[in-house]
């Protein structure tokens, strides 16, 4: 076996480990009446051990892939997102050691699993580095940012536990609507994974020529049935599906098609889950969150921001500026990705001020943490895919 194969096997092992660990955490919570009891539960200890094994295997993936390619595996969407999943688990383990809390794992690991699945939908082959990326600062900048972001993400997960526990799901309310919207969004990511995998397995390909936004001819290959056509498209493989509508040149119709497929399939999945559960998904998880102590979840959420914010600042702003200065000759260029890092940073600064000075604790703080995670994800996914700049990996 060559290193690349070993590396992807290790990733698979960690994926399975996280799945199994989730089951153990779930079992532990079901079995013990209280959080305190859980601390002594064998199930929980096993869950943690399996999580750590998964994390080590994940680290193994990272190191072997690094050895194989000769550069830190942080240079494309697959590698970046996988590392994000890894660090999320790492951050969870760290906070678990500080607070020994069970419920967090039950929510953190599934999110990590969804993130890793999402990552594997991108091209996974090892690519050589273009000149701009050949810098030690790239590695330092990206790894620090990923660690910071994943610690911040834990605060959103603690917030989620807090909200699922404390929102009254029996009565109609704005909070109930939004917490269910969060659940729905998570299912949509699964929808993306399911739709990409399905068409991938079917080996679907449809080719088109089109006119791009600089009025030059270009070509594109869809790997999903084209719901939308590019500007002035012409089908090269006419036996495949004809797009419903043609879109103006500023919109990437291929990506939009893929988005709509994900939403469609995700929605079907969501409806199925609702039919099986016969209640909102948040209500399905509520009994599991009920055993968590709200104060504790609130504090973990805050603590995660306190730990993550300096790390994020260092990675996403300071190291980013140093690298940008070496590679692009300016430390700041108002590139969309940079601007969104700044927005994330400003957002968490506002969060900290509101909490410290305005006493925004509990629900308000939990919602802010969830919104912060949405901004991080927006920067990771949407800015890369929609607003392409210097950093666009795809």
């Amino acid at each position, binding site marked *: 076996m060559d290193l*690349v194969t070993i590396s992807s096997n290790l990733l698979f092992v960690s994926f399975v480990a996280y799945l199994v660990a989730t089951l153990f955490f779930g079992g532990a919570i079901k079995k013990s*009446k*209280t*959080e*305190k009891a859980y601390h002594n539960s064998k199930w929980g200890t096993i869950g943690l051990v399996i999580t750590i094994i998964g994390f080590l295997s994940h680290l193994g993936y990272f190191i072997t892939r690094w050895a*194989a*390619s000769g550069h830190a595996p942080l240079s494309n969407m697959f590698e970046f997102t996988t590392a994000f999943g890894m660090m999320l688990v790492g951050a969870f383990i760290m906070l678990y050691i500080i607070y020994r809390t069970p419920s967090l794992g039950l929510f953190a690991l599934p999110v990590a699993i969804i993130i890793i699945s999402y990552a594997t939908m991108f*091209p996974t*082959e*090892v*690519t*050589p580095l*273009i*000149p*701009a990326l*050949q810098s030690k*600062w790239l590695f330092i900048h990206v790894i620090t940012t990923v660690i910071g972001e994943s610690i911040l993400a834990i605060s959103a997960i603690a917030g989620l536990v807090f909200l699922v526990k404390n929102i009254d799901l029996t009565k109609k309310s704005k909070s109930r609507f939004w917490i269910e919207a969060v659940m729905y969004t998570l299912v949509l990511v699964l929808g993306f994974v399911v739709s990409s995998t399905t068409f991938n397995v079917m080996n679907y390909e449809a080719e088109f020529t089109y006119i791009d*936004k600089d009025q030059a001819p270009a070509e594109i290959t869809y790997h999903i049935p084209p719901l939308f056509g590019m500007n002035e498209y012409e089908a090269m493989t006419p036996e495949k599906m004809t797009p419903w509508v043609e879109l103006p*040149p*500023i919109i990437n119709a291929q990506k939009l098609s893929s988005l709509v497929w994900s939403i469609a399939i995700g929605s079907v999945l969501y409806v199925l889950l609702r039919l099986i559960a016969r209640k909102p998904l948040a209500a399905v998880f509520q009994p599991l969150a*009920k*055993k*968590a*102590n*709200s*104060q504790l979840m609130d*504090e973990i959420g*805050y*603590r995660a921001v*306190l*730990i993550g*914010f*300096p790390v994020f*600042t*260092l990675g996403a*702003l*300071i190291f980013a*500026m140093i690298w940008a*200065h*070496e*590679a*692009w*000759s*300016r*430390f700041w260029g*108002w590139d969309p990705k940079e*601007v*969104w890092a*700044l*927005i994330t940073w*400003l*957002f968490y*600064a*506002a969060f900290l*001020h509101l909490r410290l*000075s*305005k006493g925004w604790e509990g629900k308000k703080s939990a919602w802010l943490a969830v919104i912060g995670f949405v901004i991080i994800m927006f920067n990771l996914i949407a*800015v890369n895919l929609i*607003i392409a*700049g210097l950093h666009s990996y795809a």
Partner: protein
Amino acid sequence: MSKIKCQCGHENPYGTELCEKCGRPLSEKAKKSDIVDMRYEGSSRRSQTYKSSIVDKIWNFFSSVKIGVSIIAAVLIASAIGTIFPQKFYVPATTPEGYLEYYERLYGTVGKLYYELGFYDMYNSWWFKVLVGMLATSIIIASIDRVIPLYKSLKKQRTRRHPSFMKRQRIFGEGDVRNTKESLAKAEEKLKAMRYNVKTENGAILAEKNRFSRWGPYVNHVGLIIFISGVLLRGIPGFYVDEAMWLREGETRNIVGAPGYVLENKKFTLENYTKEEAEEVFGEALDKNGMIAKSYTTDVTLYKQDEGALPGSESLKKVKDYAINVNKPLKFDGYNVFQMDYKLDELKNMTFHLVNKSSEESLGEFTVNLSDPAKVYDLGNGSTVNMLGFYPDYDGIKDGEPYSKSPVPNNPAFIFQMNTPDKPEGEKSFVAIRQTLEVEENDYAIKFAAAETRNISGLTIRKDKTLYILLLGGLVFMIGVIQGMYWQHRRVWIQEDTEGHLLIAAHTNKNWFSLRKELDTLRETADLPAYIDRQDPELDKPEQEGDEEIWT
């Protein structure tokens, strides 16, 4: 304004809520509240005390965190709007009409509006700068408003606090223990082991740790202000140079923006990843993407002009040879020269034959140096070619004349006059790539023979004296956030009151759960009264699953 004298005898500044020394509530508000506001120790802050003059009003405006957060939010939203469409500097246009046309063509009416509102150049707009200025003002004023009184009251605090202060703490407990003296002694010992600074005063303990973390926010705000000042300094000449130049292979030119320095471009190389060196690892990626660039390198020699040499005189001293790479700029005397761009295969020379059309016999050849063409080419056998016109970037005929759209030889065209022994009065011919035009039928023609090309490097020259200021700002900011966020300022008060009960109270600026864990550990060693956390509603409901017995 008059001082406020507390019952304990201490004189507090006007506006104080809690006595700096003993903690007795002084204001009506503090007396009425169940839990006192401990954020700034109930000290007298200017913004809470003086409200009448215009200076007070401005001060109070900027020192409010609500306003501060609103300014942060405004910067955040403006930044986000700036990413909806590409910013000015990413748009291939130079004139206002060009920009308008671009945004309107691609984004329709919304794009037009985006341009007209100035959002297309968001980060250089005056109001974005005003927002950043307000942010800085707010940071400075809010910090000064708080840090001074906070410092004073933390310094003056006394070990024994008044019971009314203890009772108004969020964490408070009261009760009788078997042996007060022993409890206090054990608590003191344990608190010391937990790395608290412990002070005692006949039957009262004040244990305090990590007070320094309270200064964290102010340190990080200083860092931010240093950073913002660094950015402002770039406006001052001499602090900041940002120029670009194209340097052709073989050319030696003065470096733009760096007087006295001269750069020679010896060679530009573009290297791609090859299948062989990449082996199996990158094979798949190369198949998929075609070529992937590996390096862009310009081999240069840097020269310095002699001091006092006349401009134009060739008195260059070689400084060094260097290979400029992406991520590896050439550095000298505070300047950085970066590899930013390139153009391959620009035409350098073109060689032509003069031929007799009927016999196809050549009368000789000549070479035109496209960056410095000669007027006359003597072919030596009585024939000469005169260049009447040179159009380096020929783009058709405009107003009856050939037209060059730039001075770059992308598509050179020429008008030649061929003087031969047969036709001494000369024949005229227009020659462009793959095209020859004649006014009337000629006997002779100019035929293209060969061309020589060269590469061009696009270099950026930077000098940035502010970088160290920015770096310092970043460093100070990091020290501040770590100081303020990785440690918490905790205090525990234990004392025996006049009736012989033991009182315990505790305060932290954040992370109350962790403080309670510490108190629980403390209570395992020392016999102390049980306490309550008056802001944890779940504690009042001990029947709640999972919460009982965790910390009492």
